[in-house]
């Protein structure tokens, strides 16, 4: 579809929705011009004037111009899952969609029961004592950890002293970023030859200043830090709290228990590991769980069993306060509960088996393609649920790099791959993850496309560099993105900057 921007569509007086005039008795009782003159809007917002059908058709076109899981996506660090429509439709029923979080708990027993039961499921998977679902994503759960740690140290009168958070340079950016936003100083440990920071480095980094450590394991390379128990021990020895960022849980589901490894808290991404939709970036849930020792500091409310029913516990005087309004993205919690129920213990265990086996199968086949290199080539052990790869050899040979590959993949109906979080320790990186959803046939086809683009990079590098070629639009020009005179985050700004109109009313 050659689809215009909605702001260009329509005609004067076109309507997509009517609202009735107030009932006669209402107008008679209250009159007109109810907004105080000082605040009454005088201009007419420059919105499109289109019919209901035109809005529907426009956005249906745009949806069709979105690959969104329609192809094959082995997007590493995001763990592609099947998003059950059964769960989706259940949450769209008025019994959940038309429910207000301030309703009396007596009217919320169904959803509270599900949240309580799901808390129990996560407790079993992690060994933690209490979960909350208020955080709106994994990063927000990391922030929750930082804020819980603040409350914990504040309660002990040590907040001014415990000023540091220690993590690995390979940890997800949200860990250092949220800790910093919460006011902690971040200590990043570099990787050593085994692919993870050394225990000695950790021991050197932690001290009486350390408030907490925040870690992934395995990391995005697919490397598992086998000294993790010693890490936790070293951190505990200086009194620091230990947080397990379970972003890469898929390969260890049912295999590891964060609590058994000694961690005080952990988080699960329900929109990732637990099959709730990610929806292009939320609504999401970072389920945060912790030990009884940290539970008093959790954000409120906490769902608790109360007699025969369920209640919301708001009376937690040591609570860190709210990380976000209300109780969280409740429908996503219900979908995650549905995923866990549909999988069951045996299914979850099998899923991590498949996930790791499939990643190693993929590794094997990728290693046979000329021009690719596996990260940490010295680590020969089987990787976990994903592996970071590098295009450095072929990039040096052809000049075609990972961004070009990503652009070209879309032409094959394949979602562009995930390259790497910052910093790019591995040159020209990409990070595929097979998970338990994709069939062997899908994985094979994905690898075939990578191999095909390698060939194309050699035979016609320019074509790859100018990809995509059969997508809705051609490659975008990147120069505007950092140029204040060109970037345009709204149509207003675009019209003003592109000189298309003189209607930049109200612009700065």
């Amino acid at each position, binding site marked *: 579809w050659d689809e215009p921007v909605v702001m260009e569509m329509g005609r004067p007086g076109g309507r997509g929705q009517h609202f009735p005039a107030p009932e006669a008795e209402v*107008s008679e009782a209250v009159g007109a011009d109810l907004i105080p003159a000082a605040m009454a809007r005088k201009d007419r*917002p420059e919105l499109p004037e289109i019919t209901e059908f035109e809005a529907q058709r426009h956005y249906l076109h745009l949806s069709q111009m979105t690959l*969104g899981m329609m192809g094959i996506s082995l997007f590493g660090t995001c763990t592609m899952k099947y998003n059950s429509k059964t769960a989706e439709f259940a949450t769209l029923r008025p019994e959940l969609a038309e429910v207000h*979080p301030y*309703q009396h708990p007596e009217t919320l027993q169904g959803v509270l029961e*599900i949240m309580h039961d799901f808390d129990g499921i996560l407790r079993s998977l992690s060994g933690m004592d209490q979960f909350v679902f208020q955080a709106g994503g994994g990063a927000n759960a990391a922030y929750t950890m930082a804020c819980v740690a603040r409350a914990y140290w504040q309660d002990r009168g040590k907040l001014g002293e415990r000023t540091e958070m220690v993590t690995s340079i390979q940890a997800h950016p949200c860990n250092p970023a949220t800790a910093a936003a919460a006011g902690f100083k971040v200590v990043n440990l570099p990787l050593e030859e085994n692919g993870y920071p050394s225990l000695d480095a950790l021991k050197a980094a932690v001290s009486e200043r350390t408030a907490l450590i925040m870690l992934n394991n395995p990391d995005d390379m697919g490397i598992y830090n086998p000294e993790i128990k010693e890490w936790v021990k070293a951190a505990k020895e200086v009194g620091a709290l230990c947080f397990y960022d379970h972003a890469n849980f898929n390969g260890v589901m049912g295999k590891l228990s964060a609590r058994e490894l000694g961690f005080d808290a952990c988080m699960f991404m329900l929109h990732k590991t637990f099959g709730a939709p990610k929806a292009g970036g939320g*609504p999401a849930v970072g389920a945060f769980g912790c030990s009884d020792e940290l539970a008093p500091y959790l954000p409120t409310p906490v769902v608790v069993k109360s007699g025969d029913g369920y209640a919301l516990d708001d009376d937690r005087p040591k609570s860190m306060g709210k990380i976000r309004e209300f109780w969280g993205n409740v429908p996503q919690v219900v979908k995650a509960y549905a995923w866990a129920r549909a999988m069951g213990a045996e299914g979850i265990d099998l*899923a991590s088996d498949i996930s790791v086996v499939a990643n190693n199968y993929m590794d094997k086949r990728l290693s046979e393609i000329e021009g690719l290199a596996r990260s940490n080539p010295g680590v020969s052990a089987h990787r976990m649920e994903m592996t970071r790869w590098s295009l450095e050899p072929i990039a040096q040979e052809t000049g075609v790099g990972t961004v070009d590959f990503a652009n070209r993949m*879309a032409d094959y109906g394949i979602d562009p791959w995930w390259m790497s979080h910052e910093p790019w320790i591995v040159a020209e990186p990409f990070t595929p993850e097979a998970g338990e959803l994709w069939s062997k046939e899908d994985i094979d086809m994905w690898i075939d496309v990578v191999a095909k683009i390698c060939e194309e990079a050699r035979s016609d590098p320019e074509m790859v560099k100018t990809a995509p070629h059969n997508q809705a639009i051609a*490659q975008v020009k990147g120069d505007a993105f950092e140029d204040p005179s060109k970037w345009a985050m709204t149509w207003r700004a675009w019209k003003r900057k592109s000189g298309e109109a003189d209607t930049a009313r109200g612009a700065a």
Partner: protein
Amino acid sequence: MASDMRAHPWMANSAPGVIDEMLAAIGAASVKEVFEQIPEDHFRKTPLDLPPALTSEMELRRDLVSKLKKNLSCEDNLSFLGAGVWQHHVPAVVDEIVGRTEFATNVWGSYQSDHGRNQTWFEFSSQLGALLNLDVVQLPVYSWGCAIGHAMRMAARITGRSKVLVPAFSDPERLSVIRTYCQPMEMQTRIEVVEVAADPTSGRLDLGDLADKLGEDVAAVYFENPAYLGTIETGAAEIAKMARAAGVETVVGVDPLSLGVMTAPGDYGADIVTGPVQPLGVHMHCGGGAGGFIASRDEERYVRAYNGFLVSVVETREPGQLGFGLACPHQNSYGMRENGNDWTGNSTYLWAIAGAVYMSLLGPEGFRELGQLIVSRARYAAKLLGEVPGVRIVWPDTTFKEFVVNFDDTGKTVAEVNDALRARGIFGGKDLSGEGLGLGQSALYCVTEVHTANDIRRLADTMKEILA
């Protein structure tokens, strides 16, 4: 895997033989072998203790639906709850579009493959910008409270100051989030949150107290319009003027549904504007419909201070063709980790899609009619309730969709009133009595376009009955 286990409908490679086939290709003898990195003593000792698997969709559905049916909904009951999540009409086309699997998908996506989504995001920002009369709109963050929190931190970054002013009559839920973003005091990088008194006769900001507190250490003043307790801040332009004079950023919170009838904040001097996304076509979802927007004027110092995703329209390699991508991608935490602006991650971007569709359906006339309808019905409700003996409307004539109802003279607590209403199929307003606002036994009632005159009379009649 036990060989007699049925293949799972959500795992293609659980079909018989597939794992073995892959193991053979790898050259591994067993599944155990691929887990070789994990030391033996790391494996969990406690067996998983989960409820029985419901691999049959039919059983799963029954479990979910039968549990959810234990809820009572605002569709089957008449609800006057608002305060951060509001019951508004959601057009069916919005539900359709956000439910399309291309959008309600598990992928995070990419700009190359998801042009349609990118354009929809841009259209969200563009239309919201048209309502706000502002040129920069970021993709939404988790919630309105979070949006304010980030806006406060933006203001602190921009001004280099570390104190923010908020109204004394603030939503405790949002205020708690703001405090989480700014404090505690022990942290070196903390931002102090100071309350500005309210004028008790109008509920509006006390401009005298504001003037006293607007010092050189203040990064931002925040107010809402309409405010938490439903009042319309007629002094908005004056506040912004005072702030500008003090080198202070004016941060405003607005209900986007008010903007068909209320002045755009871009027109009264707001520097950064926040608000809830949920009213723009998102169901309440038990609070899971929350989302918060942040917008500002198009100046580099603002743009460089954003924490999240800014979608910009740009040209493509094809002459005349427009595409979309992320502006200033390196200033967020993905680009700079702990040195980025706050942090970003998964957020509530699906609601940007809902909002884009919603705003395109309403258009300028729809927003005008909607605003008119809401304010009329809310005033009507306030009027009828005010006529119930013992019931007092605290600020009767300055409300958009919410207003404070006081029960002190009825001899009943809000909790008692609400219990009695609930028994009659009505969810009364939010209980304000425990919030330390000094408003006694008061409740915050919310009336929107979904409440007909009949519904409102039913509320007033029921109120009369239970207070008789």
